[in-house]
């Protein structure tokens, strides 16, 4: 018969020896520690960024940038420059955003960090798109696609394809959008990309007048984005759901989703989105004869310091 006690003891000794060996194997790595510290600061900044606390996020990214430069860590510096560019983009300071993304891209190009370079180009495309320059956006997206292909990273390529789909949807080129969504589908392996895929699929369906499909896709997008607490994306999904219900002639449901979108945008401090939501709320309130009070929304949507 197998004696359990001695065997357990033997396993315990073996485990202890492994721990000892592991402990001995651990060596002091000052540079690694510093890089870890930079990443911790950057992660904190990313969390603040996702909560809409742009000023504090910017402070963290700046600190991480200084630290990266002080230990000669170009990859980290490029990452922080990109993140600072993202902050500038959120603040609608497009020239500054463009400058920071370009600096990050040059550093990544020198180090041949293609995946990060692809993100930089995709962000440059976003900045160009928001600045009302579709030609430059298109050019940047091509560069992003090239960098993503060089990186051999599926999520990187999926990200670019999804951005292409969004670009074509903005320009009402539904066939091209469909093509890129089909190409992005197998590559969207992360929750972030899945959320974007569902959202764009919903937009495509809504553009085609298929509100059932749009409702299903936006609901799936909302669920996915909520799982990773992508608040800005969630607000976009909620607003889109409001549009779907408005298109279906259900003002009560549309009102609910617009209110939820309004509250998430308000929580994020996205003042510029509030008038858009308020306009939709006024529309559904009037057309549906809902008789809801708009005082709270009007007060929050007023321009001025937050």
């Amino acid at each position, binding site marked *: 018969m197998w004696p359990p006690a001695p065997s357990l003891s033997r396993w315990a000794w073996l485990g202890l020896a492994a721990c000892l060996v592991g402990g001995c194997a651990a060596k002091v790595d000052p540079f690694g*520690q510093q890089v870890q510290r930079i990443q911790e600061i950057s992660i904190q900044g990313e969390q603040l*960024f996702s909560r809409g606390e742009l000023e504090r996020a910017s402070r963290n990214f700046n600190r991480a940038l200084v630290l990266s430069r002080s230990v000669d860590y170009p990859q980290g510096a490029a990452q922080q420059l990109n993140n600072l560019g993202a902050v500038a983009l959120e603040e609608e300071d497009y020239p500054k955003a463009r400058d920071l993304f370009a600096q990050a891209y040059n550093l990544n190009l020198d180090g041949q960090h293609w995946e990060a370079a692809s993100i930089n180009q995709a*962000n440059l495309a976003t900045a160009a798109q928001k600045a009302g320059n579709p030609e430059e956006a298109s050019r940047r997206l091509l560069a992003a696609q090239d960098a993503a292909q060089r990186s051999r990273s599926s999520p990187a390529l999926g990200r670019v394809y999804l*951005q292409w789909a*969004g670009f074509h949807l903005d320009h009402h080129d539904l066939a091209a959008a469909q093509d890129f969504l089909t190409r992005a589908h197998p590559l969207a392996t992360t929750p972030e990309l899945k959320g974007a895929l569902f959202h764009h699929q919903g937009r495509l369906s809504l553009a085609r007048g298929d509100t059932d499909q749009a409702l299903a896709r936006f609901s799936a997008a909302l669920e996915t984005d909520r799982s990773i607490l992508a608040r*800005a994306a969630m607000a*976009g999904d909620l607003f889109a759901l409001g549009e779907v219900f408005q298109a279906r002639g259900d003002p009560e449901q549309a009102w609910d989703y617009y209110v939820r979108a309004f509250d998430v945008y308000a929580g994020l401090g996205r003042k510029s989105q509030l008038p858009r939501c308020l306009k939709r709320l006024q529309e559904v309130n009037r057309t549906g004869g809902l008789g809801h009070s708009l005082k709270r929304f009007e007060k929050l949507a007023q321009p001025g310091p937050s």
Partner: protein
Amino acid sequence: MEEGFTRKEQLVGAFLLVLLIFTMVTLLVIAQGKGWFQPQNTYLVKLKQGYNLRQGSLVKMFNAEIGKVSAMGITQTLGRPQVEVTIKVAKEYADLIRQDSVAEVVSPTLIGSEYLEISPGSSGYPKIEPYGAIPSRERKSVTEYLAEIVTQETVQKVKLTVDNVAQLSEQLKNDEKAILEAVNRVNQVLASLTEGRGTMGMLLMQKDLYARLMTGLDHLDKFLVEAKGLLVDFRPMAVDLQGFTKAINQEIEPLRAIVRNIKSGSEELPDLMEAATDTARSAKETMDAIKANPLIRLTAPKGAKSQSIHVAPRTLP
């Protein structure tokens, strides 16, 4: 037969002995107080006269007593009689009596008697040895002071002033006609004023102006009465304000205490922060070391990975 003192005799003897000792001690204390045992230096001061100084008169320096006059006498020096004052100065001040010291008799303003003031000598001059003569300065008499004032020059100046006054009087006599004319003119002006002629006359003599002035004064009176009433209304408000200020002051006191506490706490804060940072750092290092262990690394949850942020257009305004 037993010889010696009886008990009574012994008691009386002891009593007398105690009395003797007590007297001796008292004398010693008094002598100490009077400075009888204090070492003193004797100096001589020669003056033209005694200026009411007498034996026991004080000797002062910086208006503080440093000794006394011990004797006075008249001596003949170079055929001239002089008053020789012998003074005793405490030895501790002997260093201050030097060749450039000057002794002078000072009279009191109202109360007290004359004393001898000695000015302190400079360190560059040699000390005056005991029984040496201290240079003296004679006190000036009233006639001497008068003689100083009434000099030839002063008399000349007074004479000149009297001459000037006489000259002025002569000139006035010559200009009598012009002065009379001026006085007549002034009379004429005054007459015009009383008749109410000219701007000044109208201002002074017209009743209308007077009436307007009176009306103005009436208005002013009314205004002052109203102001008085307002002041009465203000008084309770001022009292309330005082109470309010007091209440604020009372409220501020705990706030001050809080601020003081915060201030004292904040002084310790950097140390606390440093200690906390050190502790956190060492704890983190320990945790890192634990995480580095392969067995733990395998089972530990994967932390978030820092990455470049991709800003999708759908998330933007």
